[in-house]
Protein backbone atom coordinates (compact mmCIF):
# COMPACT_ATOMS: atom_id res chain seq x y z
CA UNK A 1 0.00 0.00 0.00
CA UNK A 2 1.55 3.26 -1.03
CA UNK A 3 1.91 6.27 1.20
CA UNK A 4 -0.38 9.14 0.42
CA UNK A 5 0.71 12.73 0.17
CA UNK A 6 -1.96 13.69 2.71
CA UNK A 7 -0.27 11.53 5.25
CA UNK A 8 2.78 13.63 5.85
CA UNK A 9 3.29 11.98 9.24
CA UNK A 10 4.33 8.79 7.49
CA UNK A 11 6.45 10.58 4.92
CA UNK A 12 9.64 10.30 6.92
CA UNK A 13 10.58 6.79 7.84
CA UNK A 14 12.32 7.84 11.01
CA UNK A 15 9.32 9.79 12.23
CA UNK A 16 6.64 7.34 11.13
CA UNK A 17 3.95 6.61 13.69
CA UNK A 18 3.11 3.34 12.02
CA UNK A 19 5.26 0.89 10.09
CA UNK A 20 5.02 0.81 6.29
CA UNK A 21 2.71 -1.62 4.52
CA UNK A 22 -0.09 -1.58 7.04
CA UNK A 23 -3.70 -1.59 5.88
CA UNK A 24 -6.83 -1.65 7.99
CA UNK A 25 -7.00 -5.43 7.62
CA UNK A 26 -3.36 -6.09 8.56
CA UNK A 27 -3.66 -3.85 11.61
CA UNK A 28 -6.78 -5.63 12.75
CA UNK A 29 -5.12 -9.00 12.29
CA UNK A 30 -1.86 -8.03 13.87
CA UNK A 31 -3.29 -6.57 17.07
CA UNK A 32 -6.01 -9.17 17.53
CA UNK A 33 -3.67 -12.09 16.78
CA UNK A 34 -1.53 -11.06 19.73
CA UNK A 35 -4.37 -12.16 21.96
CA UNK A 36 -6.48 -14.55 19.93
CA UNK A 37 -4.09 -16.80 18.05
CA UNK A 38 -0.44 -16.18 18.85
CA UNK A 39 1.23 -18.04 21.65
CA UNK A 40 2.25 -15.78 24.48
CA UNK A 41 5.99 -15.14 24.64
CA UNK A 42 7.94 -17.00 27.32
CA UNK A 43 8.61 -13.73 29.08
CA UNK A 44 4.88 -13.35 29.65
CA UNK A 45 4.83 -16.54 31.71
CA UNK A 46 7.99 -15.59 33.58
CA UNK A 47 6.82 -12.09 34.48
CA UNK A 48 3.26 -13.12 35.35
CA UNK A 49 4.54 -16.02 37.43
CA UNK A 50 6.91 -13.93 39.49
CA UNK A 51 4.49 -11.01 39.77
CA UNK A 52 1.67 -13.21 41.02
CA UNK A 53 3.91 -14.50 43.80
CA UNK A 54 4.34 -10.91 44.92
CA UNK A 55 0.61 -10.32 44.50
CA UNK A 56 0.09 -13.18 46.96
CA UNK A 57 2.50 -11.45 49.30
CA UNK A 58 0.11 -8.48 49.21
CA UNK A 59 -2.69 -10.75 50.37
CA UNK A 60 -0.51 -12.01 53.19
CA UNK A 61 0.46 -8.53 54.36
CA UNK A 62 -3.13 -7.36 54.26
CA UNK A 63 -4.25 -10.34 56.31
CA UNK A 64 -1.51 -9.68 58.82
CA UNK A 65 -2.55 -6.04 58.94
CA UNK A 66 -6.18 -6.95 59.61
CA UNK A 67 -5.38 -9.42 62.33
CA UNK A 68 -2.65 -7.42 64.05
CA UNK A 69 -3.44 -3.77 63.30
CA UNK A 70 -1.51 -0.98 61.65
CA UNK A 71 1.19 -1.24 64.30
CA UNK A 72 2.89 -3.65 61.89
CA UNK A 73 3.72 -0.58 59.82
CA UNK A 74 6.41 1.92 60.69
CA UNK A 75 4.45 5.16 61.21
CA UNK A 76 4.39 6.37 64.79
CA UNK A 77 4.92 9.70 66.55
CA UNK A 78 6.24 12.00 65.23
CA UNK A 79 6.26 10.46 61.72
CA UNK A 80 2.58 9.60 61.44
CA UNK A 81 2.61 9.20 57.68
CA UNK A 82 5.00 6.76 56.11
CA UNK A 83 4.94 4.23 53.31
CA UNK A 84 1.17 4.32 53.18
CA UNK A 85 1.04 7.92 51.98
CA UNK A 86 4.31 7.77 50.05
CA UNK A 87 3.02 4.85 48.04
CA UNK A 88 -0.45 6.30 47.70
CA UNK A 89 0.96 9.45 46.10
CA UNK A 90 3.48 7.49 44.04
CA UNK A 91 0.87 5.16 42.58
CA UNK A 92 -1.72 7.80 41.88
CA UNK A 93 0.92 9.94 40.21
CA UNK A 94 1.80 7.05 37.93
CA UNK A 95 -1.83 6.73 37.02
CA UNK A 96 -1.96 10.31 35.83
CA UNK A 97 0.19 9.75 32.77
CA UNK A 98 -2.40 7.32 31.41
CA UNK A 99 -5.06 9.99 31.60
CA UNK A 100 -2.71 12.59 30.23
CA UNK A 101 -1.97 10.43 27.19
CA UNK A 102 -5.63 9.55 26.65
CA UNK A 103 -7.20 12.89 27.28
CA UNK A 104 -4.82 15.82 27.04
CA UNK A 105 -2.90 14.51 24.04
CA UNK A 106 -6.22 13.72 22.35
CA UNK A 107 -7.42 17.28 22.83
CA UNK A 108 -4.09 18.56 21.54
CA UNK A 109 -4.48 16.29 18.48
CA UNK A 110 -1.22 14.46 19.13
CA UNK A 111 -1.64 11.46 16.86
CA UNK A 112 1.29 9.63 18.39
CA UNK A 113 -0.79 8.95 21.46
CA UNK A 114 -2.88 6.41 19.57
CA UNK A 115 -0.73 3.32 19.92
CA UNK A 116 0.16 3.87 23.57
CA UNK A 117 -3.07 5.20 25.04
CA UNK A 118 -4.80 1.86 25.57
CA UNK A 119 -2.19 0.24 27.76
CA UNK A 120 -1.45 3.56 29.44
CA UNK A 121 -5.13 3.70 30.45
CA UNK A 122 -4.92 0.15 31.76
CA UNK A 123 -1.83 1.18 33.68
CA UNK A 124 -3.86 4.05 35.16
CA UNK A 125 -6.62 1.75 36.34
CA UNK A 126 -4.29 -0.68 38.07
CA UNK A 127 -2.16 2.09 39.54
CA UNK A 128 -5.25 3.81 40.97
CA UNK A 129 -6.35 0.47 42.43
CA UNK A 130 -2.97 0.16 44.18
CA UNK A 131 -3.15 3.78 45.32
CA UNK A 132 -6.65 3.36 46.70
CA UNK A 133 -5.61 0.44 48.88
CA UNK A 134 -3.26 2.54 50.99
CA UNK A 135 -5.59 5.13 52.52
CA UNK A 136 -8.27 2.47 52.95
CA UNK A 137 -5.93 0.17 54.81
CA UNK A 138 -4.40 3.06 56.72
CA UNK A 139 -7.77 3.69 58.30
CA UNK A 140 -6.88 0.61 60.33
CA UNK A 141 -10.44 -0.60 60.22
CA UNK A 142 -11.23 -0.56 56.50
CA UNK A 143 -14.64 -2.10 57.11
CA UNK A 144 -15.56 1.29 58.51
CA UNK A 145 -14.13 3.17 55.53
CA UNK A 146 -17.64 4.04 54.42
CA UNK A 147 -17.56 6.67 57.18
CA UNK A 148 -15.57 8.71 54.67
CA UNK A 149 -18.58 8.86 52.40
CA UNK A 150 -21.48 11.26 52.93
CA UNK A 151 -23.98 8.53 53.78
CA UNK A 152 -26.73 9.14 56.33
CA UNK A 153 -25.86 7.06 59.39
CA UNK A 154 -27.13 6.30 62.84
CA UNK A 155 -24.57 8.66 64.43
CA UNK A 156 -26.05 11.60 62.57
CA UNK A 157 -22.52 12.59 61.50
CA UNK A 158 -21.29 14.00 58.21
CA UNK A 159 -17.81 14.11 56.74
CA UNK A 160 -15.95 17.40 57.15
CA UNK A 161 -16.33 18.94 53.70
CA UNK A 162 -13.75 21.61 54.50
CA UNK A 163 -10.97 19.05 54.85
CA UNK A 164 -8.60 18.16 51.97
CA UNK A 165 -8.74 14.56 53.15
CA UNK A 166 -12.44 14.42 52.29
CA UNK A 167 -11.71 16.22 49.01
CA UNK A 168 -9.36 13.31 48.36
CA UNK A 169 -12.23 10.88 48.77
CA UNK A 170 -14.26 12.75 46.18
CA UNK A 171 -11.33 13.30 43.82
CA UNK A 172 -9.88 9.79 43.92
CA UNK A 173 -13.18 7.95 43.72
CA UNK A 174 -14.30 10.12 40.81
CA UNK A 175 -10.95 9.62 39.15
CA UNK A 176 -11.11 5.85 39.50
CA UNK A 177 -14.65 5.77 38.09
CA UNK A 178 -13.95 8.09 35.16
CA UNK A 179 -10.71 6.27 34.28
CA UNK A 180 -12.57 2.98 34.18
CA UNK A 181 -15.33 4.47 32.01
CA UNK A 182 -12.85 6.06 29.64
CA UNK A 183 -10.95 2.81 29.27
CA UNK A 184 -14.04 0.69 28.73
CA UNK A 185 -15.64 3.05 26.23
CA UNK A 186 -12.41 3.02 24.24
CA UNK A 187 -12.43 -0.78 24.34
CA UNK A 188 -15.97 -1.33 23.04
CA UNK A 189 -15.22 -1.19 19.26
CA UNK A 190 -12.12 -3.34 19.76
CA UNK A 191 -14.07 -5.90 21.76
CA UNK A 192 -16.38 -6.07 18.73
CA UNK A 193 -13.32 -6.76 16.57
CA UNK A 194 -12.35 -9.60 18.89
CA UNK A 195 -15.91 -10.94 18.82
CA UNK A 196 -15.78 -11.13 15.03
CA UNK A 197 -12.24 -12.50 14.90
CA UNK A 198 -12.51 -15.04 17.70
CA UNK A 199 -12.55 -18.69 16.68
CA UNK A 200 -13.62 -20.40 19.89
CA UNK A 201 -17.23 -20.41 21.00
CA UNK A 202 -16.45 -19.29 24.52
CA UNK A 203 -14.15 -16.52 23.26
CA UNK A 204 -16.89 -15.30 20.92
CA UNK A 205 -19.41 -15.37 23.74
CA UNK A 206 -17.28 -13.48 26.22
CA UNK A 207 -16.00 -10.82 23.83
CA UNK A 208 -19.46 -10.54 22.30
CA UNK A 209 -20.97 -10.00 25.73
CA UNK A 210 -18.40 -7.34 26.59
CA UNK A 211 -18.82 -5.61 23.20
CA UNK A 212 -22.47 -4.93 24.15
CA UNK A 213 -23.63 -5.64 20.59
CA UNK A 214 -21.51 -2.91 19.02
CA UNK A 215 -21.91 -3.01 15.23
CA UNK A 216 -20.01 0.02 13.89
CA UNK A 217 -23.14 1.90 12.80
CA UNK A 218 -22.45 5.45 11.61
CA UNK A 219 -24.90 7.03 14.04
CA UNK A 220 -23.42 4.99 16.87
CA UNK A 221 -19.93 6.12 15.96
CA UNK A 222 -21.05 9.72 16.00
CA UNK A 223 -22.51 9.56 19.52
CA UNK A 224 -19.56 7.46 20.56
CA UNK A 225 -17.03 10.00 19.38
CA UNK A 226 -18.94 12.81 21.06
CA UNK A 227 -19.03 10.92 24.33
CA UNK A 228 -15.35 10.03 24.06
CA UNK A 229 -14.31 13.58 23.29
CA UNK A 230 -16.39 14.93 26.16
CA UNK A 231 -14.86 12.36 28.50
CA UNK A 232 -11.44 13.53 27.38
CA UNK A 233 -12.44 17.13 27.92
CA UNK A 234 -13.65 16.34 31.43
CA UNK A 235 -10.76 14.04 32.35
CA UNK A 236 -8.26 16.78 31.66
CA UNK A 237 -9.34 19.16 34.43
CA UNK A 238 -10.15 16.12 36.54
CA UNK A 239 -6.63 14.73 36.43
CA UNK A 240 -5.19 18.14 37.28
CA UNK A 241 -7.65 18.52 40.15
CA UNK A 242 -6.88 15.07 41.55
CA UNK A 243 -3.20 15.67 42.07
CA UNK A 244 -3.88 19.22 43.17
CA UNK A 245 -6.14 17.83 45.88
CA UNK A 246 -3.49 15.25 46.78
CA UNK A 247 -1.01 18.09 47.19
CA UNK A 248 -3.55 19.96 49.37
CA UNK A 249 -3.28 17.08 51.84
CA UNK A 250 0.16 18.51 52.51
CA UNK A 251 -0.11 22.17 51.54
CA UNK A 252 -3.08 22.80 53.83
CA UNK A 253 -1.02 21.65 56.82
CA UNK A 254 1.34 23.95 58.67
CA UNK A 255 4.26 21.52 58.64
CA UNK A 256 7.51 23.10 57.37
CA UNK A 257 8.18 21.95 53.81
CA UNK A 258 4.51 21.22 53.17
CA UNK A 259 2.90 24.61 53.58
CA UNK A 260 3.75 26.04 50.15
CA UNK A 261 1.74 27.30 47.22
CA UNK A 262 3.98 25.67 44.63
CA UNK A 263 2.70 22.23 45.61
CA UNK A 264 -0.27 21.83 43.23
CA UNK A 265 1.55 22.52 39.91
CA UNK A 266 4.69 20.83 41.19
CA UNK A 267 2.76 17.70 42.19
CA UNK A 268 0.89 17.56 38.89
CA UNK A 269 4.11 17.85 36.88
CA UNK A 270 5.72 15.23 39.11
CA UNK A 271 2.79 12.91 38.49
CA UNK A 272 3.13 13.20 34.72
CA UNK A 273 6.89 12.78 35.01
CA UNK A 274 6.51 9.59 37.06
CA UNK A 275 3.71 8.29 34.89
CA UNK A 276 5.60 8.69 31.63
CA UNK A 277 8.52 6.88 33.20
CA UNK A 278 6.18 4.00 34.03
CA UNK A 279 4.67 4.04 30.52
CA UNK A 280 8.19 3.65 29.14
CA UNK A 281 8.93 0.93 31.68
CA UNK A 282 5.97 -1.01 30.32
CA UNK A 283 6.18 -0.04 26.63
CA UNK A 284 9.77 -1.03 26.00
CA UNK A 285 9.44 -4.69 27.01
CA UNK A 286 6.02 -5.01 25.32
CA UNK A 287 7.51 -3.68 22.13
CA UNK A 288 10.23 -6.33 22.14
CA UNK A 289 8.26 -9.31 23.46
CA UNK A 290 5.28 -8.82 21.18
CA UNK A 291 7.13 -7.47 18.15
CA UNK A 292 5.01 -4.35 17.88
CA UNK A 293 7.89 -2.04 16.98
CA UNK A 294 5.96 -1.04 13.86
CA UNK A 295 3.12 0.28 16.03
CA UNK A 296 5.04 1.66 19.01
CA UNK A 297 7.76 3.19 16.89
CA UNK A 298 11.03 4.97 17.64
CA UNK A 299 9.10 8.20 17.21
CA UNK A 300 6.89 7.30 20.16
CA UNK A 301 9.87 6.58 22.37
CA UNK A 302 11.49 9.79 21.22
CA UNK A 303 8.39 11.82 22.11
CA UNK A 304 8.07 10.19 25.51
CA UNK A 305 11.71 10.98 26.18
CA UNK A 306 10.98 14.62 25.40
CA UNK A 307 7.98 14.65 27.73
CA UNK A 308 10.18 13.21 30.48
CA UNK A 309 12.70 15.95 29.96
CA UNK A 310 10.11 18.74 29.93
CA UNK A 311 8.18 17.57 32.98
CA UNK A 312 11.47 16.81 34.71
CA UNK A 313 12.39 20.45 34.40
CA UNK A 314 9.04 21.60 35.79
CA UNK A 315 9.69 19.34 38.75
CA UNK A 316 13.19 20.77 39.04
CA UNK A 317 11.65 24.23 39.12
CA UNK A 318 9.50 23.00 42.00
CA UNK A 319 12.60 21.89 43.90
CA UNK A 320 14.17 25.26 43.27
CA UNK A 321 11.15 27.21 44.46
CA UNK A 322 10.83 25.00 47.54
CA UNK A 323 14.42 25.72 48.51
CA UNK A 324 14.17 29.42 47.74
CA UNK A 325 10.95 29.85 49.70
CA UNK A 326 12.53 28.23 52.75
CA UNK A 327 15.03 31.07 52.92
CA UNK A 328 12.64 33.75 51.69
CA UNK A 329 10.08 32.85 54.36
CA UNK A 330 12.57 33.93 57.07
CA UNK A 331 11.03 31.21 59.19
CA UNK A 332 13.52 29.34 61.37
CA UNK A 333 11.59 26.12 60.97
CA UNK A 334 11.50 26.34 57.17
CA UNK A 335 15.22 27.13 57.00
CA UNK A 336 16.00 24.31 59.37
CA UNK A 337 13.89 21.91 57.29
CA UNK A 338 15.92 22.71 54.18
CA UNK A 339 19.27 22.35 55.91
CA UNK A 340 18.02 19.14 57.43
CA UNK A 341 17.14 17.85 53.98
CA UNK A 342 20.57 18.72 52.66
CA UNK A 343 22.63 17.35 55.54
CA UNK A 344 20.30 15.68 58.03
CA UNK A 345 19.83 11.96 58.61
CA UNK A 346 17.89 11.61 55.37
CA UNK A 347 20.39 13.55 53.23
CA UNK A 348 21.22 10.39 51.31
CA UNK A 349 17.61 10.11 50.12
CA UNK A 350 17.52 13.79 49.16
CA UNK A 351 20.74 13.71 47.14
CA UNK A 352 19.70 10.43 45.50
CA UNK A 353 16.46 12.08 44.54
CA UNK A 354 18.31 14.94 42.89
CA UNK A 355 20.54 12.48 41.06
CA UNK A 356 17.72 10.26 39.80
CA UNK A 357 15.15 12.94 39.01
CA UNK A 358 17.32 15.82 37.93
CA UNK A 359 20.72 14.66 36.70
CA UNK A 360 20.09 11.34 34.95
CA UNK A 361 17.07 12.53 32.90
CA UNK A 362 19.34 15.14 31.27
CA UNK A 363 20.50 12.30 29.00
CA UNK A 364 17.23 12.92 27.17
CA UNK A 365 18.65 16.05 25.57
CA UNK A 366 20.50 13.83 23.10
CA UNK A 367 18.25 12.66 20.23
CA UNK A 368 20.25 9.47 19.75
CA UNK A 369 19.80 8.47 23.37
CA UNK A 370 16.06 9.09 23.20
CA UNK A 371 15.89 6.35 20.59
CA UNK A 372 18.16 3.96 22.45
CA UNK A 373 15.93 1.63 24.44
CA UNK A 374 18.62 0.78 26.99
CA UNK A 375 19.26 4.40 27.87
CA UNK A 376 15.53 5.13 27.88
CA UNK A 377 14.93 2.22 30.19
CA UNK A 378 17.68 3.37 32.51
CA UNK A 379 16.21 6.88 32.63
CA UNK A 380 12.68 5.56 33.16
CA UNK A 381 13.77 3.36 36.07
CA UNK A 382 15.76 6.23 37.50
CA UNK A 383 12.67 8.45 37.45
CA UNK A 384 10.50 5.69 38.94
CA UNK A 385 12.88 5.51 41.87
CA UNK A 386 13.41 9.25 42.03
CA UNK A 387 9.74 10.07 42.26
CA UNK A 388 9.33 7.55 45.05
CA UNK A 389 12.24 9.15 46.89
CA UNK A 390 10.70 12.58 46.34
CA UNK A 391 7.56 11.60 48.25
CA UNK A 392 9.72 9.93 50.88
CA UNK A 393 11.70 13.11 51.38
CA UNK A 394 8.63 15.36 51.45
CA UNK A 395 6.82 13.24 53.99
CA UNK A 396 9.50 11.82 56.26
CA UNK A 397 11.97 14.70 56.42
CA UNK A 398 9.27 17.23 57.29
CA UNK A 399 7.73 15.05 59.97
CA UNK A 400 10.73 13.53 61.72
CA UNK A 401 11.94 16.85 63.12
CA UNK A 402 8.93 18.29 64.90
CA UNK A 403 8.89 21.91 66.14
CA UNK A 404 10.26 20.84 69.54
CA UNK A 405 13.44 18.73 69.70
CA UNK A 406 11.81 16.70 72.46
CA UNK A 407 9.48 15.28 69.85
CA UNK A 408 12.07 14.38 67.26
CA UNK A 409 12.25 10.84 65.98
CA UNK A 410 13.29 8.61 63.13
CA UNK A 411 11.31 6.61 60.66
CA UNK A 412 12.02 3.54 58.60
CA UNK A 413 9.66 1.23 56.78
CA UNK A 414 9.22 -2.09 58.54
CA UNK A 415 9.47 -5.38 56.72
CA UNK A 416 5.66 -5.33 56.39
CA UNK A 417 5.82 -1.87 54.82
CA UNK A 418 8.23 -3.22 52.23
CA UNK A 419 6.23 -6.41 51.80
CA UNK A 420 3.13 -4.42 51.04
CA UNK A 421 4.94 -2.15 48.61
CA UNK A 422 6.37 -5.16 46.77
CA UNK A 423 2.91 -6.70 46.98
CA UNK A 424 1.26 -3.79 45.20
CA UNK A 425 4.00 -3.90 42.56
CA UNK A 426 3.19 -7.57 42.08
CA UNK A 427 -0.54 -6.90 41.92
CA UNK A 428 -0.02 -4.10 39.41
CA UNK A 429 2.22 -6.21 37.19
CA UNK A 430 -0.06 -9.25 37.35
CA UNK A 431 -3.11 -7.20 36.46
CA UNK A 432 -1.25 -5.53 33.63
CA UNK A 433 0.00 -8.82 32.21
CA UNK A 434 -3.52 -10.26 32.32
CA UNK A 435 -4.73 -7.18 30.46
CA UNK A 436 -2.10 -7.73 27.79
CA UNK A 437 -3.09 -11.38 27.56
CA UNK A 438 -6.84 -10.92 27.16
CA UNK A 439 -7.52 -7.47 25.74
CA UNK A 440 -6.21 -5.46 22.78
CA UNK A 441 -3.17 -3.63 24.13
CA UNK A 442 -3.29 -1.17 21.24
CA UNK A 443 -6.48 0.53 20.10
CA UNK A 444 -7.44 -1.10 16.79
CA UNK A 445 -10.20 1.30 15.80
CA UNK A 446 -8.06 4.34 16.45
CA UNK A 447 -4.98 2.96 14.73
CA UNK A 448 -7.06 2.44 11.59
CA UNK A 449 -7.57 6.16 11.39
CA UNK A 450 -3.80 6.52 10.90
CA UNK A 451 -3.71 4.16 7.95
CA UNK A 452 -3.84 5.54 4.43
CA UNK A 453 -6.18 2.76 3.32
CA UNK A 454 -6.35 3.64 -0.35
CA UNK A 455 -4.26 5.98 -2.42
CA UNK A 456 -5.90 9.36 -2.56
CA UNK A 457 -8.16 8.64 0.39
CA UNK A 458 -7.99 9.70 3.98
CA UNK A 459 -10.04 8.39 6.80
CA UNK A 460 -11.62 10.63 9.37
CA UNK A 461 -9.70 10.60 12.59
CA UNK A 462 -11.02 8.34 15.26
CA UNK A 463 -12.42 10.09 18.29
CA UNK A 464 -13.19 13.54 17.15
CA UNK A 465 -10.15 14.46 15.13
CA UNK A 466 -10.89 16.42 12.01
CA UNK A 467 -9.97 15.54 8.45
CA UNK A 468 -6.36 15.80 7.50
Amino acid at each position, binding site marked *: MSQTPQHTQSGHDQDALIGPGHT*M*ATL*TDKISDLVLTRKQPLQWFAVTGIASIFASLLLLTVLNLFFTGIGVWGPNNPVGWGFDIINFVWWIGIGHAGTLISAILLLLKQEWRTSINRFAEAMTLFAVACAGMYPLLHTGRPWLAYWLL*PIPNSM*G*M*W*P*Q*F*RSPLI*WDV*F*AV*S*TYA*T*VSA*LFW*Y*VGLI*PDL*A*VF*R*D*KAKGKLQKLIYGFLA*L*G*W*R*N*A*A*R*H*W*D*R*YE*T*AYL*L*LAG*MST*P*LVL*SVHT*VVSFDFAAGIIPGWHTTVFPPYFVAGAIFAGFAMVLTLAIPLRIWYGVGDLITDKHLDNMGKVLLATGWIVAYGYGVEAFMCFYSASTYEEFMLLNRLQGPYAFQYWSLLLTNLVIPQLMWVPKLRRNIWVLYLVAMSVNIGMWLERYVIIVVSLHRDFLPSSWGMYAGTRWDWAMFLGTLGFFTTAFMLFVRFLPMISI*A*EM*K*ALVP*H*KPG*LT*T*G*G*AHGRSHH
Partner: protein
Amino acid sequence: MSTHAKTETPIYGYLAEFDDKDALFACCKAARAKGLTEIEAYTPTPLHGLTDILGYRNYVPHLVFLGGLAGAVTAFGLCYWASVLEYPLNIGGKPFNSWQAFVVPTFETMILFASLTAVFGMLILNGLPQPYHPVFNVEKFARCTSDRFFFIVLARDPKFDLQATKRFLSEQKALSVDEVPH
Protein backbone atom coordinates in the same frame (compact mmCIF):
# COMPACT_ATOMS: atom_id res chain seq x y z
CA MET B 1 -34.63 -16.91 14.62
CA SER B 2 -35.60 -13.58 15.98
CA THR B 3 -37.23 -13.35 19.35
CA HIS B 4 -38.38 -9.82 18.56
CA ALA B 5 -42.00 -8.81 18.30
CA LYS B 6 -43.74 -10.01 15.15
CA THR B 7 -42.78 -7.90 12.19
CA GLU B 8 -44.75 -7.28 9.05
CA THR B 9 -41.89 -7.01 6.59
CA PRO B 10 -40.70 -10.21 4.87
CA ILE B 11 -37.02 -9.40 5.44
CA TYR B 12 -35.14 -6.92 7.64
CA GLY B 13 -33.49 -5.14 4.73
CA TYR B 14 -30.79 -5.19 2.08
CA LEU B 15 -27.12 -4.92 2.99
CA ALA B 16 -24.57 -3.67 0.46
CA GLU B 17 -20.83 -4.22 0.97
CA PHE B 18 -18.11 -1.79 -0.13
CA ASP B 19 -14.32 -1.83 0.05
CA ASP B 20 -13.98 1.90 -0.47
CA LYS B 21 -15.34 4.71 1.62
CA ASP B 22 -15.99 6.99 -1.37
CA ALA B 23 -18.35 4.41 -2.86
CA LEU B 24 -20.11 4.22 0.51
CA PHE B 25 -20.48 8.00 0.64
CA ALA B 26 -21.84 8.03 -2.93
CA CYS B 27 -24.31 5.28 -2.07
CA CYS B 28 -25.56 7.17 0.99
CA LYS B 29 -26.06 10.31 -1.05
CA ALA B 30 -27.87 8.44 -3.82
CA ALA B 31 -30.14 6.76 -1.27
CA ARG B 32 -31.03 10.10 0.29
CA ALA B 33 -31.68 11.57 -3.15
CA LYS B 34 -34.06 8.70 -3.80
CA GLY B 35 -35.95 9.60 -0.64
CA LEU B 36 -34.95 6.54 1.40
CA THR B 37 -34.96 7.36 5.11
CA GLU B 38 -34.55 4.08 7.00
CA ILE B 39 -30.88 3.69 6.14
CA GLU B 40 -27.66 3.15 8.06
CA ALA B 41 -23.97 2.87 7.22
CA TYR B 42 -21.42 0.67 8.99
CA THR B 43 -17.74 1.57 8.95
CA PRO B 44 -14.64 0.05 10.58
CA THR B 45 -13.51 3.44 11.85
CA PRO B 46 -15.55 6.63 12.28
CA LEU B 47 -16.00 8.63 9.09
CA HIS B 48 -16.80 12.27 9.44
CA GLY B 49 -19.68 13.75 7.49
CA LEU B 50 -21.49 10.44 7.11
CA THR B 51 -24.17 11.19 9.67
CA ASP B 52 -24.83 14.56 8.04
CA ILE B 53 -25.89 12.65 4.94
CA LEU B 54 -27.88 10.04 6.83
CA GLY B 55 -29.71 12.78 8.72
CA TYR B 56 -29.90 12.60 12.51
CA ARG B 57 -29.40 14.70 15.61
CA ASN B 58 -26.88 13.99 18.32
CA TYR B 59 -28.24 14.69 21.81
CA VAL B 60 -25.23 13.43 23.78
CA PRO B 61 -23.84 16.95 24.50
CA HIS B 62 -27.19 18.17 25.84
CA LEU B 63 -27.47 15.18 28.16
CA VAL B 64 -23.91 15.62 29.41
CA PHE B 65 -24.57 19.27 30.20
CA LEU B 66 -27.62 18.33 32.22
CA GLY B 67 -25.70 15.55 33.95
CA GLY B 68 -22.91 17.92 34.95
CA LEU B 69 -25.39 20.49 36.19
CA ALA B 70 -27.18 17.86 38.25
CA GLY B 71 -23.87 16.72 39.75
CA ALA B 72 -22.81 20.23 40.72
CA VAL B 73 -26.17 21.08 42.27
CA THR B 74 -26.31 17.76 44.13
CA ALA B 75 -22.83 18.07 45.61
CA PHE B 76 -23.07 21.70 46.61
CA GLY B 77 -26.52 21.04 48.02
CA LEU B 78 -25.13 18.16 50.04
CA CYS B 79 -22.27 20.21 51.47
CA TYR B 80 -24.55 23.12 52.26
CA TRP B 81 -27.29 21.02 53.76
CA ALA B 82 -24.94 18.94 55.91
CA SER B 83 -22.75 21.85 57.06
CA VAL B 84 -25.28 24.65 57.42
CA LEU B 85 -28.70 23.14 58.03
CA GLU B 86 -28.44 19.61 59.31
CA TYR B 87 -25.40 19.61 61.61
CA PRO B 88 -23.73 23.05 61.81
CA LEU B 89 -20.37 22.72 63.55
CA ASN B 90 -18.11 25.62 64.40
CA ILE B 91 -14.69 24.62 63.05
CA GLY B 92 -12.05 27.21 63.91
CA GLY B 93 -14.56 30.01 63.48
CA LYS B 94 -15.02 29.29 59.78
CA PRO B 95 -18.41 30.23 58.34
CA PHE B 96 -20.90 27.38 58.16
CA ASN B 97 -21.32 28.04 54.48
CA SER B 98 -17.62 27.70 53.55
CA TRP B 99 -18.47 27.74 49.87
CA GLN B 100 -14.84 28.03 48.76
CA ALA B 101 -14.09 24.68 50.36
CA PHE B 102 -17.24 23.17 48.90
CA VAL B 103 -16.04 23.98 45.39
CA VAL B 104 -13.82 20.90 45.35
CA PRO B 105 -16.49 18.26 46.06
CA THR B 106 -18.84 20.19 43.77
CA PHE B 107 -16.36 20.12 40.92
CA GLU B 108 -15.50 16.44 41.34
CA THR B 109 -19.13 15.37 41.52
CA MET B 110 -19.98 17.49 38.49
CA ILE B 111 -17.32 15.61 36.50
CA LEU B 112 -18.51 12.28 37.89
CA PHE B 113 -22.15 12.80 36.96
CA ALA B 114 -21.31 14.29 33.56
CA SER B 115 -19.01 11.37 32.72
CA LEU B 116 -21.53 8.78 33.78
CA THR B 117 -24.13 10.58 31.68
CA ALA B 118 -21.79 10.71 28.68
CA VAL B 119 -21.17 6.97 28.76
CA PHE B 120 -24.59 5.68 29.72
CA GLY B 121 -26.35 8.35 27.63
CA MET B 122 -24.33 7.30 24.59
CA LEU B 123 -25.11 3.64 25.20
CA ILE B 124 -28.81 4.20 25.78
CA LEU B 125 -29.24 6.47 22.75
CA ASN B 126 -27.42 3.85 20.69
CA GLY B 127 -29.75 1.18 22.00
CA LEU B 128 -26.87 -0.74 23.53
CA PRO B 129 -26.37 -3.27 24.98
CA GLN B 130 -28.27 -5.17 22.30
CA PRO B 131 -27.48 -8.89 22.20
CA TYR B 132 -29.24 -9.57 18.90
CA HIS B 133 -29.34 -7.59 15.71
CA PRO B 134 -30.40 -8.84 12.26
CA VAL B 135 -27.29 -7.52 10.44
CA PHE B 136 -25.23 -10.15 12.26
CA ASN B 137 -27.17 -12.79 10.30
CA VAL B 138 -25.13 -11.87 7.23
CA GLU B 139 -21.86 -13.73 7.63
CA LYS B 140 -19.66 -11.29 5.72
CA PHE B 141 -20.78 -8.48 8.03
CA ALA B 142 -18.07 -9.70 10.41
CA ARG B 143 -15.54 -8.00 8.13
CA CYS B 144 -17.05 -4.65 9.08
CA THR B 145 -14.88 -4.65 12.18
CA SER B 146 -11.85 -5.29 9.97
CA ASP B 147 -11.82 -3.31 6.72
CA ARG B 148 -15.21 -3.40 4.93
CA PHE B 149 -17.92 -0.75 4.71
CA PHE B 150 -21.61 -1.63 4.69
CA PHE B 151 -24.83 0.14 3.86
CA ILE B 152 -28.32 -1.04 4.75
CA VAL B 153 -31.80 -0.11 3.62
CA LEU B 154 -34.44 -1.34 6.04
CA ALA B 155 -37.53 -3.03 4.71
CA ARG B 156 -39.69 -0.83 6.91
CA ASP B 157 -38.75 2.19 4.81
CA PRO B 158 -41.94 3.39 3.07
CA LYS B 159 -40.10 3.51 -0.27
CA PHE B 160 -38.62 0.02 0.15
CA ASP B 161 -39.35 -2.44 -2.63
CA LEU B 162 -37.99 -5.98 -2.81
CA GLN B 163 -36.93 -5.64 -6.43
CA ALA B 164 -36.35 -1.92 -6.93
CA THR B 165 -34.22 -1.43 -3.82
CA LYS B 166 -32.05 -4.42 -4.63
CA ARG B 167 -31.57 -3.07 -8.15
CA PHE B 168 -30.73 0.36 -6.78
CA LEU B 169 -28.04 -1.09 -4.51
CA SER B 170 -26.58 -3.23 -7.30
CA GLU B 171 -26.16 -0.09 -9.40
CA GLN B 172 -23.86 1.35 -6.71
CA LYS B 173 -20.24 0.23 -6.62
CA ALA B 174 -21.08 -2.49 -4.13
CA LEU B 175 -19.10 -5.73 -3.93
CA SER B 176 -22.26 -7.58 -3.04
CA VAL B 177 -25.87 -7.05 -2.00
CA ASP B 178 -27.36 -9.41 0.56
CA GLU B 179 -30.75 -10.01 1.98
CA VAL B 180 -30.82 -9.53 5.75
CA PRO B 181 -33.30 -11.92 7.39
CA HIS B 182 -34.98 -10.92 10.60
